């Protein structure tokens, strides 16, 4: 094996194709599970506002389970456990439609929803009660005080945690490899086996992951800057 030569991997159409397919799959899993997690996070937040004790307890249990069981174990439980309990027709349909990708999106999305809903909730709770009361006293209606007073502040407070958790969701998409989804880390191992250029292959994938993570952090920093108002902490 000769020296460090990234081009030896990238200029080979087969290897480059595998890596690009891997990156695409990583995006499908990351974007899919992010969308699921965010929608579910909002839904759980709304459920928590229902003034029935069982609603609050349900969300608390949901959050507790998903935060205290390792994500990999959750994925394994979905893919090997729950998959096997489904009706047979559904199992056949799933195995024809990339079951491992579907379960990776479901598993990662449901898990991350627990983090997102907590971030949103603590964003909401960090706004002092007096703010809404003051808005009402100034003549804002319920909707209007939400729109102009409560939500902008809640958004600003929740943003840093949401960005951090989005980065970890992106990184966790690599766990899908353990249940056989052919995302970037999976592609890396295949290319490494075929090309015998471990160092180069790992370097390419590491840079790809790093660039995407830093990009998410940068977008987050930009959003935080835009959400910043004079005088606020």
């Amino acid at each position, binding site marked *: 094996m000769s020296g460090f030569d990234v081009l030896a991997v990238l200029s080979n159409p087969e290897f480059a194709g595998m890596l690009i397919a891997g990156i695409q799959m990583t995006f499908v899993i990351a974007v899919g599970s992010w969308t699921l997690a965010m929608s579910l996070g909002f839904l759980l937040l709304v459920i928590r506002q229902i003034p029935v004790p069982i609603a609050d307890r349900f969300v608390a249990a949901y959050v*507790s*389970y998903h*935060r*205290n*069981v*390792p*994500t*990999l*174990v*959750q994925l*394994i*439980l979905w893919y*090997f*456990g*729950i998959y*096997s*309990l489904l009706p047979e027709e559904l199992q056949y349909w799933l195995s024809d439609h990339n079951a491992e990708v579907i379960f990776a999106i479901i598993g990662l999305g449901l898990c991350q929803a627990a*983090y997102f809903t907590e971030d949103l909730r603590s964003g909401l709770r*960090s706004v002092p009660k007096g703010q809404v009361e003051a808005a009402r006293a100034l003549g804002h209606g319920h909707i209007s005080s939400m729109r102009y007073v409560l939500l902008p502040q809640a958004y600003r*407070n929740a943003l*840093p*945690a949401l960005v*951090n*958790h989005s*980065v*970890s969701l992106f*990184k*966790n*998409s*690599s*766990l899908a*490899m*353990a249940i056989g989804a052919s995302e970037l*880390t999976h592609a*890396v*191992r295949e290319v490494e086996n075929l090309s015998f250029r*471990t*160092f180069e292959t*790992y370097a390419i*994938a*590491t840079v790809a*992951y*790093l660039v995407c*993570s*830093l990009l998410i*952090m940068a977008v987050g920093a930009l959003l935080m800057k835009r959400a910043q108002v004079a005088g606020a*902490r």
Partner: protein
Amino acid sequence: MIENIVSIVQENWLLLLIGQYPNGPLGGLASTFILSVLSIVLAFPVGILLALARLSPWRAVLWPATAFVYVARGVPLLMLILWVYFMVPLLIGRTVPGFVTMLVTLVLYEAAFLSEIIRAGILALGRGQMEAARSLGHGYFGAMRWVILPQALYNMLPSILSQFVSTIKETTLGYVINVPELTFAANQINNRLLTQPFEVFAILAIVYYVICWSLTKAATTLERRIAAKRAGTRRIAPELRPQALTAEL
């Protein structure tokens, strides 16, 4: 289903607890626990050094430390495991067991996250502490050792405990490189039974849940105690609270 779970536990509790030891390497819950404790204990001094480097005015230590922390925070742990799996034998000239690979990876990874926690703890103390210590005749390291770090680390104990919980959850990734630990043991049971994957992995999830839930509870209690003890003193600004920085797996 419940009877199945009970009978699986009755027949396999020893495998889940210690793996195939003494007929094979130590595995199961014992291995998970030893791996997590060793990782966090070894990562701690590295984390302190990284935090000090990140607060240093010298670019020669500031930049490499910052780069390291960003790489560790931006790359999936799995990718880091692959790197260590590949690099360590290359560097020391012989193969190492999966346990060691996982330990090295976790020490590097955790050191990066711990350093962010410790850095936030030091920054939250404010400059007055350092200035007072220096004016009393302490040198930089003396002030760090006797004044800054004891306070910062005490205040950050709950975050460090949460990081320990994250570490326990991260040890599951050893499964990918066949490190004998709890997830690996569950997988062995599943491979032998073949017919009850849901029950086997449900047991696995329950065990992790009980451990991590108790430790998280302990961290919350500790946090409340420390907050009560510090009531009346400076509050930590929200942007410096390190919970937002810790990793989840």
